[in-house]
C-alpha cells in the first residue's frame, strides 16, 4: 500500500506568544544558516510495537499532536519580534510507503533522513513531516523530520517514551507545561537575573578570547566545504565509563576533556574554548516539556601542565560553570556580542562546539567487558567514515556524541578550509587513543602534543594557505 493519509487534530488550546529562549536560539540559527539550515532538522524514527492497524497508528499520531503544542506551532516575524503561533486545529499530511529491502526500521531511517533534507517554511509548515512505513499492509515504523524550533533531542526521547502508550490507547495525564508557558516564565525573575549573570560570564570570556578559532589561514576547501567525519568505537565508550568512575565525574565530562585537548593541540594553544550544547532542563517544569529547551554554554579549559586526569577534573568543573551560564535570553546575548564586536573590531569566532546527544549520558547496551580488560585490542574494530557534507553550516569544529546505545559514536564536523579530513579523522582517533591510554597511565599533555596525527596547524604569519588533502 502506498499513498497518503491525513491526521486532523484538535488540541485543547491555541494561541500566540513570544519565543522561548530555546526557540530564540534556534530562530537565530536557522536564519544564520539559510539554505543550509536543514542541518538543524531532526530525523527520528518510531517503531510500531505489536500488530497495529493504520487507523490505530494514525489515532496515536493525532493524540501526540494534540498533547504537545510545540508540534502544532508555526513561527513568524512580527513588528514586536518573532512569535510562536500554536494552532488549535489543523491537519498533518502523512505519506504511506512500503518497506524496502532494508526492512521497515531501516526504510524509516532512510526516509527520515530524506525528509530532513528539506528546509521548513517555519511560518506556514507544521514543524514536523511524517511518513508511515508499511509491510504486508500493516504499519511497522514511522519516519519523521522535526524542525529544531519545535524539539530538541531530549524532547524526541520524551516522544519515544510515550509512543508505546499512545499506540496502546492508554490514558495519559495531559502535559502540564508547554512552550507558551515557558515563554511567560522567562520574562520574570529569577530568570531575568540568571540571564544577566550568564551574559556577564560570556562577556568576561569574549573580552579576552582570540578572535579566531585557529591561528592559521584558511586554505583550499573541499566542495562542499563542511564535512562530518564519524567514528564508532566501543573502546572509546568503555574507556570513558572507566575513567568517569575513577574520577567520579560524568562520561560527558571525560569526553569533553578529550575533545578539548585534541582541539587545543591542533590549534597549538594552551586553552580550548568551546560552546557546549546543553539540554538546559534545569527547571523541573521543563523536564517533561516537548519543545526546544537546549542552549549553548561556553567552556574555557586551560590544559594543565600535568596529565589527562587533571584535565578531566578541570573540564568537569569548567563544564559546570558553562552549564550554569547557559541560561539566557539569546537576543540579549547577541546584543552583548555585537557590542564586544564594536569594541574589538569584530565579534570573536566561537564556532567550536561539543554536543552530547545521549538523553541520560550513558551507553545502556555497551558490550559487557571483564573488569580491567585491556581495551587496546578493541580499537582495531573502530571504524571511521565521512557521513555528511554541507555547503554552509558555518562550524569550524563540531564534536557530537551520538545516541547509539552500544558504542561510542563520536563525529566531528570540520570546515575543510581550516582542517582537512585526515586531520579530522586523526582528531577522532586521538580522542579514542587518549581515553584508552589514560586507563593505564596518566597521559602527560606533552605526550598528546607529540601525537603524529595531531600536529598544530601552521600559523598565519607569512604563510600561504596549506594544501588540503581530500
Amino acid at each position, binding site marked *: 500500500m502506498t499513498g497518503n493519509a491525513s491526521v486532523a487534530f484538535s488540541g485543547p488550546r491555541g494561541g500566540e506568544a513570544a519565543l522561548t529562549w530555546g526557540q530564540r536560539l534556534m530562530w537565530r540559527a536557522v536564519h544564520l544558516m539559510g539554505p543550509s539550515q536543514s542541518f538543524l532538522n531532526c530525523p527520528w524514527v518510531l517503531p510500531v510495537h505489536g500488530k497495529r492497524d493504520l487507523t490505530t497508528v494514525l489515532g496515536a499520531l493525532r493524540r501526540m499532536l494534540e498533547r504537545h503544542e510545540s508540534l502544532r506551532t508555526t513561527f513568524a516575524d512580527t513588528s514586536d519580534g518573532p512569535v510562536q503561533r500554536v494552532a488549535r486545529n489543523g491537519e498533518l499530511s502523512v505519506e504511506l510507503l512500503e518497506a524496502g529491502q532494508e526492512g521497515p526500521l531501516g526504510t524509516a531511517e532512510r526516509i527520515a533522513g530524506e525528509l530532513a533534507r528539506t528546509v521548513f517554511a517555519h511560518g506556514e509548515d507544521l514543524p514536523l513531516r511524517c511518513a508511515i512505513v508499511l509491510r504486508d499492509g500493516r504499519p511497522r515504523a514511522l519516519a519523521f523530520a522535526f524542525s529544531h524550533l519545535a524539539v530538541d533531542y531530549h524532547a524526541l526521547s520524551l516522544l519515544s517514551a510515550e509512543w508505546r502508550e499512545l499506540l496502546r490507547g492508554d490514558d495519559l495525564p495531559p502535559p502540564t507545561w508547554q512552550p507558551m508557558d515557558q515563554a511567560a516564565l522567562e520574562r520574570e525573575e*529569577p530568570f531575568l537575573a540568571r540571564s544577566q549573570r550568564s551574559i556577564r560570564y560570556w562577556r568576561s570570556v569574549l573580552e579576552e578570547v582570540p578572535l579566531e578559532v585557529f591561528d592559521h589561514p584558511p586554505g583550499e576547501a573541499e566542495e562542499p566545504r563542511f564535512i562530518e567525519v564519524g567514528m564508532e568505537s566501543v573502546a572509546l565508550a568503555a574507556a570513558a565509563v572507566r575513567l568517569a568512575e575513577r574520577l567520579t565525574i560524568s562520561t560527558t565530562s571525560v569526553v569533553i576533556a578529550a575533545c578539548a585537548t585534541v582541539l587545543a593541540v591542533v590549534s597549538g594553544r594552551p586553552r580550548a574554548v568551546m560552546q557546549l550544547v546543553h539540554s538546559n532542563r*534545569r527547571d523541573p517544569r521543563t523536564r517533561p516539556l516537548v519543545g526546544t529547551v537546549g542552549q549553548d554554554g561556553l567552556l574555557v579549559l586551560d590544559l594543565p601542565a600535568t596529565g589527562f586526569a587533571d584535565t578531566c577534573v578541570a573540564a568537569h568543573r569548567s563544564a*559546570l560553570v558553562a552549564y550554569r551560564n547557559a541560561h539566557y535570553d539569546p537576543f540579549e546575548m547577541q546584543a552583548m556580542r555585537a557590542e564586544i564586536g564594536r569594541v574589538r573590531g569584530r565579534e570573536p569566532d566561537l564556532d567550536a562546539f561539543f554536543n552530547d546527544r545521549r538523553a541520560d549520558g550513558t551507553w545502556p547496551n555497551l558490550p559487557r567487558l571483564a573488569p580491567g580488560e585491556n581495551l587496546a585490542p578493541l580499537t582495531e574494530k573502530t571504524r571511521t567514515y565521512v557521513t555528511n557534507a554541507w555547503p554552509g553550516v558555518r562550524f569550524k569544529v563540531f564534536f557530537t556524541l551520538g545516541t547509539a546505545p552500544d558504542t561510542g559514536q563520536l563525529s566531528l564536523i570540520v570546515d575543510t578550509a581550516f582542517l582537512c579530513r585526515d586531520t579530522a579523522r586523526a582528531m577522532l582517533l586521538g580522542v579514542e587513543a587518549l581515553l584508552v591510554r589514560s586507563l593505564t597511565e596518566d597521559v602527560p599533555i606533552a605526550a598528546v602534543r607529540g601525537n603524529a596525527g595531531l600536529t598544530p596547524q601552521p600559523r598565519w604569519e607569512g604563510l600561504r594557505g596549506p594544501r588540503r588533502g581530500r
Partner: protein
Amino acid sequence: MLADMVADASGGEISAEEALAGEHSLPALGLTSLAWIRLIDSIEDAFGVDVDLGGDLSAFEHVDALAAHVSGLLDPR
C-alpha cells in the same frame, strides 16, 4: 533543608538521608551535572544569595560543606 534540596534536585536518585550522612561526596552518590545546576538554582532562590562558582568547587561536594558555604554567603548581611 539542604539535604532535601539535594533529593529534589536529583529527582529522587539521592535520598536526603544519604546526602546528610556525608559518607560519600554528592557526585559519588550520583548527583549529575544537571542536578547540580538545579541544586545551585534552588539554593539561590530559597536563600536569596548569589552563588559564585569562580573558586574551589569542593564546597559543593558535601552537604555540610555546602551549608557552611551558604552560611558564609548569608553572614555578611
